[in-house]
């Protein structure tokens, strides 16, 4: 199975990082949802809680598991470090120990009237660092002529010029 790098694992396990699940409907319309309960399982799969049976995310995930479609998970840390994980839905639990664990966590966070439909398990297939600085370096290298000409890496700015004039 594809193994997620440690930095990604740490980000997933950080309760303060933002986690977003992106799915598509039958016609390919995208849908994104922020998820609160997200964890990496011992077998390398990712698990997250789905609150509502009737949510667009849940419906799209059912379609994805039935017809082998991909879903995408984005996780972003407080410092802006961002990773995008592509994968396929592997299992859905609405009973058993994993479900119970998430259910009790939801109860603790949202109180006795909270709802949790089930827990989706996703098998990661690909991970990409989407952090701004990292992506900028990649793109600059790959497409150097896409850069705006007033960027500091292309042309010295006025401030830089004036600073250099003063120093002169």
């Amino acid at each position, binding site marked *: 199975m594809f193994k997620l790098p440690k930095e990604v694992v740490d980000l997933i396990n950080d309760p303060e990082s933002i986690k977003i699940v992106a799915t598509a409907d039958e016609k390919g319309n995208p849908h994104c949802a922020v998820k609160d309960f997200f964890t990496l399982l011992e077998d390398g799969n990712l698990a997250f809680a789905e609150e509502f049976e009737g*949510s667009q995310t*849940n*419906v799209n995930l059912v379609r994805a598991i*039935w017809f082998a479609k991909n879903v995408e998970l984005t996780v972003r840390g407080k410092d802006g470090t961002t990773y995008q994980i592509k994968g396929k*839905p592997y299992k859905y639990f*609405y*009973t058993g120990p994993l479900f*119970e664990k998430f259910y009790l966590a939801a109860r603790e966070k949202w109180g006795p009237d909270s709802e949790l439909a089930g827990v989706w398990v996703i098998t990661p297939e690909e991970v990409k660092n989407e952090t701004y600085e990292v992506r900028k370096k990649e793109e600059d290298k790959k497409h150097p002529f896409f850069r705006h000409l007033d960027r500091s890496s292309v042309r010295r700015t006025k401030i830089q010029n004036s600073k250099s004039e003063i120093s002169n």
Partner: protein
Amino acid sequence: MENDELGFEEVGRKYPDFPRTIMRKIDTALRGVILSEKALQRAKEEDALYDASADFVGQCGFDLDKPALKVRVPVSAEALPVIGGVFFRDGTYVLGLESVTRGLYSPSGTLVRKGKPYLLDSVDGELWLLDLPREIKLPNGISRGEPMEEVYFAPIPAYFSKKTSRGTPMIKVISSRAPNRITINISDYCHFFKEKLSCKYCSIIPWLLHKGVRTLVNLEDIYETVNEALEEEGGFTSIHLIAGSDPRGVNQNGSHRGNSPYENEVNEYVEVLKTLQRCFGREKIPVQAIASAFPREQLLRLKEVGLSAYRSNIEVWDNKLFEWICPGKAKYFGRQYWIDSILSAVEIFGRGNVSTQLVAGAELAEPYGFKEMDEALASNLEGVEFFARNGVYTTFCILWVDRGSVFYREKQKLPSLEYYVRLAQGINEIRKKYKLSSDFNDYRRDGFHPDMDLVRLDYNET
């Protein structure tokens, strides 16, 4: 499989938009599933297996080989394994395991099947359904069935091993055949059997038939058991009440003279519903009655004591076949009476809270059933559309031909996989057309209806 029937892969290719998982589910019902020793061991390790033999010795079971089904005999002292359920990866319920799955009133395990059963076995540490006829040879020279679908066990509810203060095993009071559902079988009596007018596919022999009286399950046992089950956090989302049919009315002094149809049966539901109101501390409770066709005044009584949803099963849509296959329902009080009752329930419980069920496949029984798949489908879908137009959704279950039923004695056969795929598709299309929700009987609150599995793709719209 009959010679002219399409096999699993052929049906899959012909209906590419139909989910393979649901197709496999139908196939497990048709072919059955057997558990390997390794799978049973694994179920034990995962708290998914309960030995109910001590709970049932001497208290249930019929000797079905005896011609007169009046003598209750103790079940054998052998282990009576009950498993918590088996699921495909997406949470769809695996059928074909009826004799061991959470069943208090499960059939005897003698269901007529179609082709070789699947084997549920442990392969490389995971649970799989193996296709036995499609053997593959392993590097070590051993052959085994080809793995078809990965599955997993659901644990048994904790209340299974507990007893009420009266000493009744709780597993005998309520069952939980689908993991999110509490089922209360409130009475073991069906009057249609008493008059030898049972539905021809029915193999659920009422235990107390010989006494000719209905015996309600002890209400305090229900109260204690339901409360205990509700302590299981995240365990249950719905309650279903079931009882055999009793068309007799009750006059004021309690004798059976028939002043309001099915009043006897309704009285039992009322008592149980009042008990459940105590469990919830509220008037309205998330309960569905799967019951006979009740007249309007009786339905109103059920509404008053908190009933949320009502299902009364028409079983077979075609008029002549209804009379032949369901002689008890035809006598008490005919197909039109049943239809009228179901429709009047919509006014009381609301659109989408009333449903009916077809025993799909019964309409093809010989000699009077439909001869062609297309004719049978057209009849069924006509009924489904009629009900949907009136705010009632229809589900279907796959025909069981089991020992104890008339159909078993008649050696009736099961329809093809393709038939059920087309029926599930057709019913789902009609449900979508009329935007009917069907939450009480969906994949996790019931689990026996392949058409209801398809609803999962529309939960955001209904």
